[in-house]
Every structure is written in C-alpha cells, then in structure tokens.
C-alpha cells in the first residue's frame, strides 16, 4: 500500500505538504511556549536555556527539511502554505495580532537561523512598545538587522492618507527651451568670444586659491585625518549619553535666565538624577548633586528665585514617593557600593529625614538599614524633631532604629521622649535606649539609665550596670545598694548578682564600706549559710574592685576572723591583691 502511495507523486506531495504544515505548527507552538518561559525565568535559568535550545533545534530541523518558513500574517492567525499554523485566543499573547497591528504581513525564516537571532526576534515581538514610546515591532526588527529573518510590511499612507508628490511645474516645453537658450546666450556665447573651447573659470579656481594648493590635493583625506575621525567615532561609541544630556542641561542652566524655562530644565535634571539613582548609579549622581548644591546658593546663581528652583529639585529627591521607589530599588539591586550610596543620601535636604526614617523598615538588608541610620544621624543632627515624631511608631524595628540614630546624634533633647518609651514591650528597644542614654551622657540621661536597673529583662539590667560603670555615675550607688539589699536580689542569676557588686565596687566610695564590711563579716549559721557565703564572695569582689586602703584594712580584719570561712576568703583576696601589685 505505502509503496503504491509513494509512486503517486501527487499524493506524495500532499503528504509532504501536510507534514510541512504539521512541522510548522509545532515550531510555532514551541515558539509560543518559549516566549512564555522567557518571561518567567531569569536569564541564567537552565530551564530557560532548554526551551531556547529546543526552539532553535525545531526551527533548524524545519528549515533543513522544508526550506524557508514563510508565514503569512493575518489579524490573529498565521498561515503556512494556506493552512493555519498559529492562533491564540488572548490578544495580549497573540504573536500574529502584534505583528499584524504594526503592518507586518509576512515573516520569513531562512536556513542558517541562529539562536541569538531567535532570542532577538522574541525580544522585538514581546517588547512593550507603548512604554518604548516610538519603537514598534517593525523598527525593532529593522534595528536587529537579521541575516535570516525577513519581514514584509504593508505600506502606510502619508499624513492625510494620500502621499503628496512634487507639484506639477507650470513650465511647458517651450518655456524650458527658451530658458536654456537664454542661459546659453548669456553664459556660453558671451564667454571668451572667438574661441571654440572655453577655459575653466569655475569654483575649483576659487577653492585652489583658498587652500593654496591644487584641487587634487585638497579633498583627499590624509592618514592623520582618518585616524582622528576614527578616534572620535570610537570615543562616541562608548559615550555616556546621560552624562552628555546632563552636560547640555547644565550648559542651558548657565545661560537660561527666564525662570520658567530654568525650572523646566531643572525638572529634566531631576528626572535624570532619579533615573540614575533608581538604577543604582549613585556615583554619577554625586557630582551632579554637588553642582546643584553650589548653584542652590544665591551668590552662585542668577537670583534667589533661581537658587530656590535648585533647592526644590533637591527637595524632590527627599520626598516620600521617590524614596519609597528608591528603597525598593535598593532591595532589588543589593548594592555593594555603600560608600557612594552613603554620599548620595547624605546630600539630601532635611525634608528627607522623616520619609527616610519611615522607610528603614522596608529595607531588606541589615547593612543598608544601618547605612540609612548613619545618614539620618548626619541629616538630623541639628533637627531631630522629625525623628522624635516617629518614636511612637507601631513597628518596633523602626522605633529601635530611631533610638539608635538618636544615640548617634547624642542630643539631650531626646531624653524626655526616650523616657516615654522606657517601658516598651520590646526588650531590644529598651536595650537600645540604654545604649543611647549612655551616648547622650547628660544628667537626665544618666538618671534615666539608673531606672533600667529595675528593668524586667536581665540583659537590659546588665547593660545598664555596665554603662553606669563606664559613665562612672556615682549617683547610682544608692540605687545599687537598695537593689542588693532587697528581697528580690537573691532570685537573680549569679552573673547578674556579680555584676551588681562589681558595679558597686567601681562606683562606690567610703559610704558603702560599712555595708560591705557588714556583709563580709556576717557569720553563717545553719539556715541561710549558703546565701551568706555567696554574698561574702560578691562582697570581696567589690572590695577588690574598690582597691582603696580602707578596703585592704577590712580584708585584713577579716583574715584574722575566728570564722574560718571569713578568714579564708579574706586571706585569698589579700594574696591576690599582693600578686597583682607585683
């Protein structure tokens, strides 16, 4: 049977045609799938590469077997040899719809099609041309300059539908003859009468005179000239166009006195800066902002009004809407250029303080959050009110960051606000407050710091103890004694108890000696023996820490006590003191 079919060329042709159509359909289905995949997966995804390789393979297999793939494009379908080989129900995803809309009526793929061409083709047909502004698929395909993909476009009409042509000239043949004869009589007859052949008197004589050399030498390019032009062309190939634009805009600013025009130019400079910042190019923004800062001073500009326009532009960079976008862009880019980012942000105006403070929480990376805090510490140094307004924020991490910044600034005006949140639920905030109060160092701050000795969290209390020691705040002694003497002291962890006595030793003066002596000399009976012995150990720590002659006296007295426990602990302490002296 099959051999009978093969022998019939017409039937064989039909079979081949059907196979061709099937293969073309397969290619376009694969193309459609590949387009969807490329949208989802990143460039580096192996799955993406798999789809692209498969698509290239299918294309080339078709082209090897059947020759050129010529597709006719209709509104929502594509045809191969009169048969539908592609359609899609969704217009947004329909390739044919996209091509047809821009005037393409045929697409032809030819042998030798490369993977890069296919990827570029997909890029051209899937690009969002509404955002691109004035590129459509046809112009994009043209720019790709494919070797193995061609397209046929339906011609567009002119502006009014009709293509204008050169107007018919009123001159008739007779007029033309007359005109030429007049020209001849004026120029050819009057010239050099009596001669058959006229001598040259044209512009080349004038040019030779201008250059002082024969015409043959004037217009030939020398190797040096060629090299110079090539050098300039190479230089311009790598030209940074945004910098060129900004250069032009700044030139205009230097000459444009009319305020409305000046503002218009500044609006565009603002757009350029924002574009650079959002793309992570902070290094290029810095010199621009530096120039703007200079121009924002009245003495460097045409007038106050002009200087104010500059200020407004810098203010625009500190507005919430832009900074929110900016925060998102930082999260995406995960920039490593933190120096440049810091420099850029610290050039913003004060209006940036509140929005920046608000958006710290939106930043994914800790190092970026810390950077923002450091910038805010700089920006808000003379103006902490915007920060203070955020201290009651619902997000604990925002509050903590605000507290941290206040610490870096060290302004005592923040103490009353810190007092308001000293009992915040979040211990990390209270810890941060302790740190900040230590940085502020005012009396009020230190007094507030003392109150954290009674914090519900031991880490907070320990930090308060440590910082009070660092500050050498003697006022804390009475509070320390009070706590140590309290009933709740026993329930503290050993490490904390030690810390209290240690701090007592650092801060204590003669007034605490009686308490320490009493505690040391207390004899231990059956009940409460261990507690007394424990306290004795802490007391000796305190006494050693104080290290004044009176404490040595107390230890000596203790070393000759009849109580073996007291005796031993004091002797050991004295020996250690001796050792340390040596």
């Amino acid at each position, binding site marked *: 049977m099959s051999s009978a079919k093969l022998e019939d060329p017409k039937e064989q042709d039909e079979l081949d045609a059907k196979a061709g159509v099937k293969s073309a359909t397969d290619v376009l289905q694969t193309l459609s799938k590949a387009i969807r995949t490329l949208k989802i997966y990143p460039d580096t995804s192996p799955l993406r590469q798999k789809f692209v390789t498969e698509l290239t393979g299918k294309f080339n297999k078709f082209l090897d077997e059947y020759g050129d793939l010529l597709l006719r494009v209709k509104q929502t379908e594509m045809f191969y040899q009169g048969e539908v080989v592609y359609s899609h129900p969704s217009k947004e995803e329909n390739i044919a719809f996209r091509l047809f809309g821009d005037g393409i009526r045929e697409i032809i793929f030819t042998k*030798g099609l490369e993977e890069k061409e296919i990827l570029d083709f997909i890029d051209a047909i899937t690009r969002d041309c509404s955002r691109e*502004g*004035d*590129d*459509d698929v046809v112009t994009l395909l*043209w*720019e790709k*300059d494919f*070797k*193995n993909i061609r397209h046929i476009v339906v011609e*567009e009409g*002119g*502006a009014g539908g009709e*293509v*204008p042509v*050169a107007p018919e*000239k009123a*001159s008739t043949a007779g007029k*033309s003859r007359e*005109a*030429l*004869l007049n*020209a*001849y*009589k004026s*120029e050819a*007859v009057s*010239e050099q009468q009596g001669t058959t*052949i*006229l001598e*040259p*008197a*044209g*512009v080349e004589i004038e040019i030779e005179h*201008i*250059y002082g050399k024969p*015409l*043959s030498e*004037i*217009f*030939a*390019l020398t190797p040096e000239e*060629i090299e*110079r*032009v*090539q050098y300039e*062309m190479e230089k*311009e190939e790598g030209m940074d*166009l*945004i910098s060129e*634009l900004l250069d*032009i805009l700044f*030139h*205009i600013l*230097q*000459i*444009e006195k009319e305020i409305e025009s000046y503002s218009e130019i500044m609006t*565009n400079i603002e757009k*350029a800066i924002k*574009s650079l910042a959002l793309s992570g190019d902070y290094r290029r923004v810095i010199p621009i902002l530096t120039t703007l800062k200079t121009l924002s001073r009245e003495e460097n500009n045409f007038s106050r009004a002009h200087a104010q326009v500059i200020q407004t532009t810098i203010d625009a960079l500190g507005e919430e809407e832009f900074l929110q976008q900016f925060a998102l862009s930082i999260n995406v880019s995960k920039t490593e250029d933190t120096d440049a980012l810091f420099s850029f942000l610290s050039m913003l105006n004060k209006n940036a303080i509140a929005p920046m403070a608000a958006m710290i929480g939106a930043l994914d990376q800790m190092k970026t959050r810390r950077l923002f805090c450091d910038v805010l510490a700089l920006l808000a140094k003379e103006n902490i009110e915007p920060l203070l307004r955020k201290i009651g924020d619902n997000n604990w991490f925002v509050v903590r960051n605000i507290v941290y910044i206040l610490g870096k600034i060290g302004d005592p005006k923040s103490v009353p606000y810190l007092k308001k949140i000293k009992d915040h639920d979040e211990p990390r905030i209270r810890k941060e407050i302790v740190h900040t109060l230590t940085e502020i160092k005012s009396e009020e701050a230190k007094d507030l710091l003392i109150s954290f000795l009674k914090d519900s969290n031991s880490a907070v209390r320990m930090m308060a103890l440590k910082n009070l020691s660092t500050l050498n705040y003697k006022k804390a002694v009475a509070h320390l004694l009070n706590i140590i003497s309290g009933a709740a002291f026993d329930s503290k962890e050993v490490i904390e108890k030690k810390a209290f006595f240690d701090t007592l030793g650092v801060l204590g003066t003669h007034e605490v000696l009686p308490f320490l002596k009493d505690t040391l000399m207390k004899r231990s009976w059956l009940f409460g023996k261990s507690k007394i012995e424990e306290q004795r150990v802490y007391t000796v720590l305190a006494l050693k820490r104080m290290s004044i002659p009176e404490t040595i006296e107390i230890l000596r007295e203790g070393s000759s006590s009849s109580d073996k426990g007291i005796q031993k602990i004091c002797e050991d302490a004295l020996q250690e003191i001796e050792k340390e002296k040596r």
Partner: protein
Amino acid sequence: MKDRLFVEKRGSVGKDFINSLYILFKTALIHDLKNVALNSTVDKVIEFIHLLLEEDESFSLKMVQEHLFIDEVKIKVDIENFLASMFLIEEMKKRGIGSITFSTHLSIDELKRFIYAFISTDLKSPQPFEELINKLTSLAVTRITIDRVKEEVENFDHVLEDTREMAKKIYFKTIAVASEIMDSEKLKNSAGIKKAKRLVQSMVDVMLQEESTLLGLTTLRAYDEYTYNHSVNVSILSIAMGQRLGYHRRELSELGIAALFHDIGKTGLPLELLNKPTEFTPEEWEIMRKHPVNGVKTLLKLKGLQEQAIRMIMASFEHHLNYDLSGYPKLATPRRVSLFGRITSITDCYDALTSARVYNRNPFIPDKALSFMMKKSNTAFDPILLKIFINVVGIYPVGTLILLNTRELGVVTKANPTPTNIHRPRIKLITDPEGNEIDGNVIDLSENKGRSIVHSLDHRKYGVDVSKYFQ
C-alpha cells in the same frame, strides 16, 4: 536573503582584501622581494584571496566609474578603506587596468612577482598596460590576469528604476510626516515620530543601496514648505555623510532621525517670524536664536531620557554652535560638539544656503555654497567633516547647472567619488553647442577628457528647472 547575506559578506571581505592589498603595495614600494617585512602582508592578502575564492575558482577586482567591485559586489568607500580604495583606483587607472582577476592555486611567490611587476610599470611609457602584460608573461604570472578598462556604463548602474520610484515615495512621505511633526498641536503625541523612524530606516536602506537617488531629490528646493523639505534634506545629506564615515545601519538611522528633528525647536515660534520676508530685528533674532534650546525642551517632553532622544537633543542643541563655539547659543563654558552635531551643522547650513526661502529668493547655487562654507572651515565647520561632506556631494553637487568648455549645458547627476576627480562629476547633457535643448547622454567627465566644466550657472536666474531631471 541569500543574496543579501552573500553581498554583505563579500563586501566585508572585499573591504579587508582591498585594505591588505593597499598595505602590500605600499610595503613593496619600500622593501624588496626578499625582505622579511613583506611576508606578513603577503600572507594577509593570500588569506583574503582564499576567502574570496571559497565560492568560485576565480574572482575579479574591478574598477568601474571610480568604484571598486569584487565581481558584481560594489565595495562601499568609507573612512576605513578610503585611502586604500583611492590608491587602487588611481593606480589601476594609471595603468589602464579595468580588472585584476585572481585564480585558485595562487602561490605567495607568484603574488609577489605580480606586485613587483605592477609597481615597476613605467607610467611614462605610451602603453603601460601592454608593458605590464609583457612583464607578467615574462615572470610567468598566470594565476593573476589583468584586463583593460571597459567603456560600458550600464552594467554596473545599480540605480534600478524601482529603487528610484521607492526613493521618491519615501522622500515625499517623509516630508508629509515632517510637516505633521512640526505642527505644534500634533506634537502632543509621538505617533508622528514613530512613523518618521520607519521612514528614516527606509531612507537608510535606499541610501545603502544607492545614495545618489535620494541625494538627487534634495534638489527639489523650489517649494514653500521650506522647513519640512529642509528637515528631510538635512536628514538625507547627514545619512550620506554618515555612510562615508562608516556608520552601521542603526547608527545611520539614529543620525537620520536626529537630523530630521534638528529644527524641531522652531515649532512654537510665531509663523510671522518664520515667514518674515525682511531682516530680523535684534529682538527677533534673540527669539530665533532660542530654537536650539527650545528643541531640547520639546524633545525632552516628547521622549524623555531615551537614548535615541538624547542624540536628537544633541543635534538640536549643537547645530548652530559652530565648530569653534562662536555660534549660538553662547555657552558660558566650552563644550565638545558631538559628531552628530557637527555633521548636522554642515548639512543644515548647506541646505539652507541653497534653498529658496521667503526672505531669500536668490539662494546660493550649490558650488558657491560649498565655496562659502569652505571659507569657514575650522571656524564654523569641522575641517575634516567638511572635506568628507564635499567628497560626498562633490564640488559641483547633484542638480548643479553647468557650462562645459564645448559650450554645451549640462546638469550634474552624480558626484565623482575620488577626491582627485572631484571637479569631474557625471553629468547629463541638456543643450548642444548651439544652445538647443536636447535630451542628451549621461557622461562621466572623469572619463571624457574632451569635456570639462567652465563654471556653474544659477538655474533660477534663467528659470531652468533642474529638478525635472531627477523625478
């Protein structure tokens, strides 16, 4: 598609071959046959010869009407191969050689013998071609053969009729789109710019095939729609210059668009000002001088910070600056004018000088315009780019009405591409020696030594319509 791919590849290898052959000739002029310095250059030439012989057993380097061909493929002259092309054309002409054919199995030795025979030809002899033939025979050079210059013209005339028709269509469509764009009301959307881009791309395609057609259409200057004609002409002339510089397709398109929009800053200027028939007052000049900056603002509104827009902005801002920054706007600090800006400056000035306008019904004739511009070389204009421009359009540009030494009148139809023959373009004879109108032949003055140009004529003065010879 295969043809296009073939032509492009052939053209590219052909360019490299010509460059390497030029270097080989130059080296051979300095060093003798046995010198080692020759070896690497010979190897390079052989490499390209082998590439060109991949398709066939032989290929020919041909010179036809001041152009070089590899078989049927024309080698475009640009900055990269300018010196090589001019050298080879000149040397082949001196020897009366029309083609040099290279065949398979060409050895390095044989190539060297050919080169030396070539450079040692006595050019003062009455028959240099025969002399060379004899030398090649005596040196047993058989794999390289030479043929005389042929008189035929039409075989390599690449201006096909449909190309001419397509060029006209594109030209007038672009004028229509330009008029749409310059209408300030319609500037509110950028649909016109999209259309313009497609048309400029089409212009680039036509120019890459054959530039003289579109260049010829720039002679249609007699109409009142000056601004629109002007923008299109400046675009065409700029693309032609860009081609000579060796810009690729995409760059040519960008240059063409930038040139098309160089005067967009004039939209929004009062029509009474644009059409004022008399001299501007100082205040009016002040307004007019704002148009480069206005163009910047307009383009920013239309297109924002896109790469394409920035090149257009550069052309708009810079086209009146002048090479030495003596133009306008007057800058407070110096700026390097971009190549696009310098190109547009030249083409804009040339077209403005040669166009009839409301306030200037007697514009310059093309060669006088060029002479005027040459006096401003190195001040208003980049001297090298101006030279290149004149190489492109010729000192008697397309459309110039000329008087020949035989008292015939003619119209220039195509510039001569070689600088040494820049004053000997291709012309169409339009009168006989008695002044009678004829539909004469197109002749190449560089090959017709009996005729030469006496001077150009102002066709408007006599009411001669030169544009009809290009439609």
